[in-house]
């Protein structure tokens, strides 16, 4: 994506970001896993949170989604969603693709997509069908396997199904938790190509990744999470060039 196209999408200065997180803290019992994290994601942007295993990335997303209790403020589309249960956040347009995919093993691919639109069940059937056909067009593999049980899919197909199911909910904000985890390198490349392509739909993406190189390449802005704190933040090109990031997150990896 060229720099001027990115500029054309930029929000006017001072506009409220789609997601604003202020001083979020999450604790498991007495052990605090995320300490006072603040971040923001502007509409239509891809924002990434990178960090090592155990840095609190998954915990952060689970708290944003309402799966874990947290302190601090989470504002989404101008609403303080703190008291909202998970289902209301989904209906409001926040959709999480979790690290463990959380598919329905004994249900078919087609059932997953139908249920993905559960929060949009009052929308006209034609609109839901159109949405489903878009998902099938984006993931031709899912179209081929539409009558297959989720449990029989390969790792990459499962990730595609989790993404497709999430897209059926017409998200304004897509929270992606380690979409490349456990996938073969070629499949990882496919997944990141798909994430980059989602930018065209106008959806805002918060991408949590261990694969810092790929995440920074696709994102507009990045945060580095270390032991539950934001250690660094900045435009992803600047982060990728930062010697501290390069040494800790990019140096050891083979491109």
């Amino acid at each position, binding site marked *: 994506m060229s720099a001027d196209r990115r500029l054309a999408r930029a929000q006017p200065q001072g506009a409220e970001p789609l997601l604003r997180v202020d001083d979020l803290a999450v604790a498991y019992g007495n052990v605090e896993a995320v300490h006072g994290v603040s971040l923001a994601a502007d509409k239509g942007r891809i924002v990434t949170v990178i960090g090592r295993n155990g840095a609190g990335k998954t915990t952060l997303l689970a708290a944003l989604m309402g799966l874990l209790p947290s302190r601090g403020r989470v504002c989404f589309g101008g609403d303080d969603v703190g008291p909202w249960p*998970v*289902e209301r956040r989904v209906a409001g347009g926040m959709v999480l693709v979790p690290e463990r995919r959380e598919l*329905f093993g004994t249900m078919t691919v087609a059932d997953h997509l139908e*249920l*993905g639109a559960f929060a949009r069940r009052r929308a006209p059937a034609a609109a839901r069908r159109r949405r489903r056909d878009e998902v099938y067009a984006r993931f031709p593999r899912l179209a081929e396997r539409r009558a297959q049980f989720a449990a029989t899919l390969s790792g990459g197909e499962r990730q595609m199904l989790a993404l497709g199911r999430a897209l059926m*909910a017409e998200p304004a904000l897509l929270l992606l938790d380690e979409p490349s985890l456990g996938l073969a390198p070629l499949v990882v490349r496919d997944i990141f190509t798909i994430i980059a392509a989602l930018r065209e739909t106008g959806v805002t993406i918060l991408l949590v990744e261990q694969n810092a190189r790929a995440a920074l390449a696709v994102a507009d802005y990045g945060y580095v999470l270390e032991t539950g704190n934001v250690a660094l933040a900045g435009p992803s090109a600047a982060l990728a060039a930062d010697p501290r990031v390069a040494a800790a997150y990019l140096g050891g990896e083979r491109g």
Partner: protein
Amino acid sequence: MDAQIAALLAQDGFTNGAIYALLALALVLVFAVTRVIFVPSGELVSYGTLTLAALDAGKTPGMVKLLVGAAVLATVIEVVSTLRRREARRLLPRVLLWGGVPLAIAALVTWAAPLKPPLFAQVLLTLAAVGALGPLLYRIVYQPIADASVLVLLIVSVALHLVLAGLGLYFFGAEGSRTPAFASAQLAVGSMTFSAQSLFVVATSALAIVVLYVLFNRTLYGKALRATAVNRIGARLVGIAPDFAGTVTFTLAALLCAFCGVLIGPITTVYYDSGFLISLKGFVGAIIGGLVSYPLAAAGALFVGLIEAFASFYASAFKEVIVFTLIIPVLLWRSLTSHHHEEDE
């Protein structure tokens, strides 16, 4: 034993087995979606028969009082939790749903009882009144502890069973009741005779099973319940609230239990505490299906019905002993063949 007696026993076994099968399906459904072992299902069976018997006698069934009390309690709980969540906008629909609907059913039953409506209308009133208890019991008893362990949910179920049995004695008295047969004809096929009542029970049970199958495989809400049973977190992430799934499940289960009560009424005399033993037999069937498989649970329940029929011929004094002893080899076999699942959430 000659062939004719065997055929008669088999007919008996299939009739009871069909009813146990419906109960087994209700138990599997409730356990799969909410992890609750629904011990009070038996009381809802008794309530079903006894409510129908009261309506048939032109009396207002006492359980209407429970319906009113539960509706008021559930409405208060809903109002408080709605205000706490700052969702005042949704207050009115929730009050209408949790208070209005059950109170309307209670009023309708009270109004219609002395009019002695036809049997079919009595059955519908019974299903509405007992079915309405399902979601109310879930809202008041189970929803606040929905995340508790299976053991805690079981203990609460046993407590609820005792409470409902006690209330059943208070509402309906200690005398048993029988309801009139839906059909009294005898059908002769060759040397065999089938009672129309048996055929009616088997046919309506089969119909109920087909309806459930279509519901769970063809409709969005049925699929939502299945999804919740397969993966609770995954279901939440597509926007299926666990409370919603639990409420729908308990409504379906209560309707099934009430329907079993209606079906069994003309076959045996039902007392306020008879339901427990009946649902325990459904539970044996459900256990044969491992509390997860619907077809196995239904088949297991039919098997229980057949065993019971033949046991009552060979050793009628030991009929219950034989049926419940059956569960031991089944459990042994299951523990040897299936892998133990840790409860992971």
